[in-house]
């Protein structure tokens, strides 16, 4: 009989003949859930997703015959699930404020009936393949849930249910498989989380993911289907940035995996999302969002599973032809869960106690991102954004350095910027994006052909200003030429008026691509105008005092997306702001004595 032999923290040794590796188990009188991670003869070693306190040797155990898998079907969106896809809201109703152990509640509600419409051209007798659409269910007002033939099913359609209301278990279709067996299909299907869902081929060309965050979209773009990492020490605003992305990005589905992070942060997401509307569809954001929550105080093994649960659900929506963004906060906690289990298994640690397979696990996980042609021939994408929490903010630690090799876009958060209350605290020198070339095509076509050039010029100003800043710190601002002083000011202007963005400000929180470009172009125009005047002999000090320099800092909050025409007009009329000064100096132009007097007149 299957029984417990030994308990060591979350690891239990079971007498369980014939157990499969990865098989789900129920253990003890409470029926705690877990999975088999090793086999030796008739004994199996399992890791538990729940706390093992109180479990005793001799208590019963049971193998369930299938690996950890998720339920996929209508009812996922707007929900909050734990690391092994148990519905937390339903668990709260059933077992109270604290998560009782051994609670088993299916992920998808059985109480609700869904309005199913069969696809028009699906007729009995036709051959269906995995990934084909059987029909649709309007899951939320913004998302139509497409019911797919599971990837491992193909054969002749014998029967398809008519339009009507069905629960997730009701049989919708019967299919005779090629080997002659019958398969019944319903609104819901299962898929093992550690196996990527299949697709036809990768589809590399793509468009940028617009997040409404200027430093991201304009400077370090990410493509739909791309891979990005957000590393940052604590207090650098990592979570806030991820929330902003989850709120404003132009994906159709957002999956937010809180992996070993703070409970209050998830509560913040849960309480704020229903009140916010999607700037792209005008619908409540919660309708397109799904949360996986394994907070830091929840069992560590389920934390390891949570990112796989998230990515599998993401792939499922991708297979329906949607653009999905998955945010994993934080992959470091996931890696630590790996480390903890590896340590208990006595595996040889390599760097900082992490097992040798850390790099390959991370790479395999990120590889599940991508823009693909689905089995049914549609296009869908999974964009993966992983937060990294490097100990002590040290980017050379194993998780950050492995991640850096895998991802294409790197949004490096800096403690210094955060301490200076510069948010989002993304370091413009340390960050990079491998997608700039592809993004440039999109910006040129949809916003302005000069985007790539303007972006490059702004970055040049920023990096030049670092150099100038060093000089100023050593020998003072007087050592700079007028042109250099003006460039330094322009870089400051770009930092304050463009890079800094207030998540809490109603207008500034989201900036459309058009607004982003207008601001960038406007600031560069101010710089260019100033340079022109400096050539006429105007000292930088006079330029810095111009009202337009202070005013430009408020453009981002003054002009919302409804007032873009006004902003465009404002930017177009910039020359006038410089006219008076120009007039003053045009007369005296060439008078070197006057310039010298102006420059030297003030200490």
């Amino acid at each position, binding site marked *: 009989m299957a029984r417990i032999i030994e308990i060591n923290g979350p690891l239990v040794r079971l007498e369980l003949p014939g157990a499969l590796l990865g098989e789900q188990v129920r253990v003890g009188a409470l029926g705690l859930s877990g999975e088999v991670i090793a086999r030796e003869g008739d004994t199996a070693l399992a890791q538990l997703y729940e706390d093992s306190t109180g479990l005793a040797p001799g208590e019963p155990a049971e193998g369930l015959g299938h690996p950890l898998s998720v339920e996929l079907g209508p009812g996922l969106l707007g929900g909050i699930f734990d690391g092994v896809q148990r519905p937390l809201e339903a668990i709260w109703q059933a077992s*109270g404020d604290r998560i009782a152990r051994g609670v088993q509640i299916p992920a998808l509600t059985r109480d609700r009936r869904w309005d199913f419409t069969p696809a028009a051209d699906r007729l009995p007798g036709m051959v269906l393949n995995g990934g084909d659409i059987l029909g649709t269910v309007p899951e939320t007002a913004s998302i139509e849930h497409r019911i797919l033939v599971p990837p491992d099913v193909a054969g002749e359609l014998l029967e398809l249910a008519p339009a009507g209301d069905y629960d997730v278990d009701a049989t919708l279709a019967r299919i005779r498989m090629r080997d002659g067996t019958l398969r019944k299909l319903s609104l819901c299907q299962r898929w093992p989380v550690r196996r990527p869902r299949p697709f036809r081929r990768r589809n590399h060309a793509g468009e940028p993911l617009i997040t409404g965050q200027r430093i991201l979209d304009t400077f370090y773009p990410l493509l739909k289907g791309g891979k990005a990492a957000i590393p940052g020490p604590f207090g650098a605003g990592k979570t806030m940035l991820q929330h902003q992305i989850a709120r404003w990005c132009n994906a159709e589905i957002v999956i937010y995996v809180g992996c070993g992070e703070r409970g209050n942060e998830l509560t913040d997401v849960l309480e704020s999302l229903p009140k916010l509307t999607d700037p792209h569809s005008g619908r409540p954001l919660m309708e397109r969002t799904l949360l996986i929550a394994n907070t830091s105080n929840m069992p560590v093994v389920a934390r390891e599973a949570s990112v796989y649960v998230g990515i599998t659900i993401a792939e499922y929506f991708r297979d329906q032809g949607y653009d999905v963004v998955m945010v994993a906060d934080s992959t470091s906690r996931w890696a630590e869960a790996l480390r903890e289990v590896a340590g208990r298994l006595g595996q040889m640690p390599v760097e900082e106690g992490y097992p040798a397979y850390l790099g390959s696990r991370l790479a395999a996980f990120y590889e599940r991102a991508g823009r693909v042609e689905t089995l049914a021939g549609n296009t869908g994408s999974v964009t993966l954004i992983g937060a990294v929490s490097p100990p002590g903010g040290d980017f050379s630690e194993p998780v950050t350095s492995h991640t850096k090799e895998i991802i294409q876009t790197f949004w490096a958060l800096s403690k210094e910027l955060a301490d200076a209350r510069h948010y989002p605290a993304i370091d413009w020198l340390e960050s990079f994006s491998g997608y700039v070339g592809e993004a440039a095509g999109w910006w040129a076509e949809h916003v302005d052909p000069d985007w790539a050039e303007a972006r490059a010029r702004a970055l040049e100003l920023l990096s030049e200003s670092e150099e100038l800043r060093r000089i100023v710190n050593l020998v003072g601002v007087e050592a700079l030429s007028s042109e250099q002083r003006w460039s330094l000011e322009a870089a400051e202007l770009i930092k304050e008026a463009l890079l800094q963005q207030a998540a809490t400000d109603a207008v500034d929180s989201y900036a459309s691509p058009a607004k982003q470009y207008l601001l960038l172009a406007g600031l560069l125009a101010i710089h260019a105008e100033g340079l022109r005047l400096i050539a006429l002999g105007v000292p930088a000090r006079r330029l810095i005092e111009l009202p337009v320099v202070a005013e430009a800092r408020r453009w981002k909050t003054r002009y919302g997306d409804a007032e873009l025409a006004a902003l465009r007009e404002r930017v177009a009329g910039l020359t006038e702001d410089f006219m008076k000064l120009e007039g003053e100096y045009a007369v005296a132009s060439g008078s070197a004595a006057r310039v010298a007097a102006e420059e030297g007149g003030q200490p």
Partner: protein
Amino acid sequence: MKNLEFRTASSARGGLLVMANVAGVAAGTRVGITDHSGRRRNGLVIRTSDDAVLVEVFEDTDDLDLERTWVRFLDEPYSLPVSRDILGRVFNGVGRPRDGRPPIVSGQHRDINGAPLNPAARAYPREFIETGLSAIDGMNSLTRGQKLPIFSGGGLPHNRVAAQIVRQARLLGEAAGDFAVVFAAFGVSSQDARFFQEGFEESGALERLVMFLNLADEPVIERLLTPRAALTAAEYLAFELDRHVLVVMTDMTAYAEALREVAVLRGDVPARKGYPGYLYSDLAELYERAGRIRNRPGSITLIPVLSMPSDDITHPIPDLTGYITEGQIVLSRELNAQGVYPPIAVLPSLSRLMKDGIGGDFTRPDHPRVASQLFASYARALEVRGLAAIIGAEDLSEGDRRYLEFAEAFERRFVGQAEGDQRDVYATLDLAWDLLSMLPAASLTRVSEEELAKHYKPGDKVTR
């Protein structure tokens, strides 16, 4: 099983005792051990199998004679008896009285390990808690349900600051009467323990307070249980008696060191600086017990105090703490050396949830912008001070010299306050305006025009 005594100890080493031939012992069970001299010790089952049960002995395994050691498995985890009467009491690390009064008699016992709160059951922290310290209330405000650690260093007065917060903390408005404090100190010297206990008794703070004390010479494993017992008491007060509970715990570094000591004994693989890989999860298990719950009036707010080894904020203990908590209050050695008490360095300090606890609904409408202005002006003032150190104060412009004076006044009068000085948040904000009035109105861009008109006092030359 709890009535059976076993005498089957097969080996003992470094605080661990192996029991043979005991079947069916549950993981995490409490253990009572009696040695040949009749001395009783406590233990915990950390690993159990058909053949052997591994028991961690709190009071160490010294002098154990394996053949004359009797072990009883109590079939229950460590638990704390709870009732209304715990208020005003002082306990040791595992909940036994240390104030000479009788033990708590109650039919209600709570497992001190708690159980993880369902994230869906949480409510977001909101509303203000006043500590009476300007640097916290004004610029790094504490919100009900928040966890805000104090990062200190050896030799800095964090114990005095913690004690002052325990004495002064209060709620504004109607909820004021529902306030309680749980204070836990672990690994402290008996002198510090006396300082805390006498201070609270004298100030009358004890009647709304529950204290847990684990002294430096008491069992290391009890140090691991002390914060758990304290948080169990807090959970009872907050979520069963509807109190707003502030938990102050000192010193988390002693806790983490105890954890490392025990982990090494158990043979766990070390990660950073010898601390076990699960230090993060273990700290999170404690810190995440703070919070609010939907449809329940009470709340737990947590202030863990920790001394950063060698003042290194990247050391695993402050680092992992910072990743779990919602901000930090940093004490500065420099300010302390200048005689500023409490030596709170406001710039590296941060309260992430501040915005949800202040403003018109909770404190005063100008509070968020005044705080932002103080940050900006003080940051600017420190830049000027840095400049003055290079070129000399004489060569500063008139405007810059005003900033220099502002920095001085800000540190002495706003950050600095006496140990007995309880400033309410309105006094703190008025003081902030006094100081801001030292600067030109045109430079105060973070506050609104109306606020300037109302609160700015030009010409009101503030002197030290």
